[in-house]
């Protein structure tokens, strides 16, 4: 036991004496949360819009005001001709142009034209939907009495404000834990190989399992610090609630961290240099997490083969579990499947990496 504690202490020295590592470890979650929270976002906010109003009657002015007041749009300018409108698109000044036909209020079947810059198709679809909704709402207000049309009442569950943070906070947690646990652990072990210190450690009575555990534990602890940072930041800065049990959330995170650590160990048995370890964890872990965990792109829309592949990405299961517990506030029974899959992965990976860990050079 004394051997073990002294080994763990040594690992902490390594981490904290390397300013770069310390910075990466402690600042990365903060930077990622702030980046995703404020900079990289798919939410529609204050998109520049232009309006070509050919009637300028009471109704179109009201609609203009409503569009202006919406937090989704910001009125860039009022244009007077199609030619000006086209020019604005070409210069990229606006993403949407709303065109009101002449004598709008007095024409019974008058239609409003919404032009959108569809270079980003997803954004264009969203913009048109928002725009149409605002116009339709105004129309309903005006024609409330006459309208007999069926109006659906929608309720957005779990995330009524449709905040992106609800989606990316679990994603960032999945990403950070893999980065810290898998990448840092594998680099840590491979570094001993590279520096030749592994040779000395092997020719010592130290059991290989102690070497592995001592390498993993500091990163497990640090990743818990990171989880705490992320949760605090998202709770206080991004107003993401923690609806379910905090204990459950932390337990799932520990389980996922263990899976990540095992992945790191496995990588360290394959890689011989620190660069190789970094590349493998970067390409084999980061990319699938970004692309296949459901963090950025919905898995349901992917071709079957990618959907199958996504099943072996641990982050996918972790993100599902975190969303269930944190955002939906579901109890432990509802994430049994995810927990089971992650546990199975941990067992298989531990078995593989301990078996592959070489007691000789």
């Amino acid at each position, binding site marked *: 036991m004394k051997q073990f504690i002294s080994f763990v202490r040594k690992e902490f020295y390594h981490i904290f004496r390397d300013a770069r590592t310390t910075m990466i470890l402690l600042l990365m979650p903060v930077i990622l949360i702030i980046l995703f929270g404020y900079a990289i976002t798919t939410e529609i906010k204050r998109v520049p819009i232009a309006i070509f109003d050919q009637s300028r009657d009471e109704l179109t002015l009201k609609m203009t005001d409503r569009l202006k007041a919406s937090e989704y749009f910001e009125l860039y300018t009022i244009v007077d001709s199609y030619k000006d409108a086209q020019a604005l698109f070409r210069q990229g000044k606006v993403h949407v142009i709303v065109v009101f036909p002449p004598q709008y209020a007095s024409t019974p079947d008058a239609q409003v034209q919404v032009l959108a810059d569809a270079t980003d198709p997803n954004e264009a679809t969203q913009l048109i939907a928002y725009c149409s909704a605002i116009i339709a709402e105004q129309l309903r207000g005006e024609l409330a009495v006459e309208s007999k049309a069926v109006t659906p009442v929608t309720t957005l569950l779990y995330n009524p404000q449709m905040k992106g943070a609800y989606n990316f906070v679990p994603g960032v947690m999945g990403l950070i834990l893999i980065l810290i646990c898998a990448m840092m652990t594998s680099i840590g072990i491979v570094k001993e190989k590279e*520096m*030749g210190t592994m*040779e000395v450690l*092997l020719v010592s009575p130290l059991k290989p399992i102690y070497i592995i555990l001592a390498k993993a534990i500091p990163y497990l602890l640090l990743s818990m610090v990171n989880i705490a940072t992320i949760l605090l930041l998202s709770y206080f800065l991004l107003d993401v609630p923690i609806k379910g049990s905090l204990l459950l959330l932390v337990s799932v995170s520990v389980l996922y961290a263990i899976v990540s650590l095992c992945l790191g160990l496995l990588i360290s048995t394959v890689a011989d240099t620190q660069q190789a370890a970094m590349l493998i964890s970067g390409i084999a872990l980061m990319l699938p997490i970004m692309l296949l965990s459901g963090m950025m792109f919905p898995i349901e829309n992917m071709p079957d083969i990618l959907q199958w592949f996504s099943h072996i990405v641990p982050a996918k299961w972790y993100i599902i579990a975190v969303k269930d517990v944190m955002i939906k506030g579901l109890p432990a029974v509802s994430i049994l499947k995810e927990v089971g899959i992650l546990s199975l992965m941990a067992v298989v990976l531990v078995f593989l990496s301990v078996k592959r860990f070489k007691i000789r050079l």
Partner: protein
Amino acid sequence: MGRLNMNNEIHINHITKRYGDVEALRDLSLEIGSGELFGLIGPDGAGKTTLFRILTTLLLADSGSASVCGLDVVKDLKEIRRRVGYMPGRFSLYQDLTVEENLNFFATVFNTTIEENYDLVRDIYSQIEPFKHRRAGKLSGGMKQKLALSCALIHRPDVLFLDEPTTGVDPVSRSEFWDMLDRLKRQGITILVSTPYMDEASRCDRIALVRSGECLSIDTPVGIRASYDRRLYAVRSISMYKLLGDLREFPDTNSCFAFGDAHHLTLRKDGEDVMRRLRDYLKGKGYEDVSLEPIEPSIEDCFMAL
């Protein structure tokens, strides 16, 4: 403990190790006695490090067997790892840990403390103790080796494996290092040390000259030098480069190598007759200042002759 029954022997029987097509060790056999300071002398690539790794259980030989302290290097891996000290050729300590932290770490890894075995490492460690709060990476080459030796010794091993401990160390520190090995030997520790420096060979009890994975000769340094059966001459002149070529072209030259400030020359035949012809030959080549004196062979001469 092992030291009391004095079975700290090393037996190496017909060890062969291949890396792909390269034979690093070729049917190598050696017997090293308890408490012996044994030197493996040979150039880079001779297979010294491979042999160390096999003996310290880090590598498996392709064929042959070996034992350390009567323990088989394959079967009794755990027990051997408890009883040997190993200092790899490359500096293999933690550069970002201080001197004291390194020593402390290795002491605890071997389930002991610095205090417990301080008497063993005192001579060595006391020299670097003034710098104990300095990071190991910031030490000079000689101090690094002293620290590495302290770390390899801290658990009082029965057998010590030192792979080129003095490579890259200044001559004064090298000499000090060998003084330490002498003191350790007196404690009954078997020491197997490798070095590419032939001049260090004389500090060993016995040496083995190895080249290309084979033992060329095993004997005491004195024995090895005594077995050198030719007369050896040191030849000096102003224009040394030209002299080397001319000496090699002399019909009766057996071998001629550049050794520091002189060329070491052996002839096919000995005797006044040949010597006179050599002098005439050199005079004919235009040398006025050649000095030619018989010398005692060094280990390096013996190595070159093998």
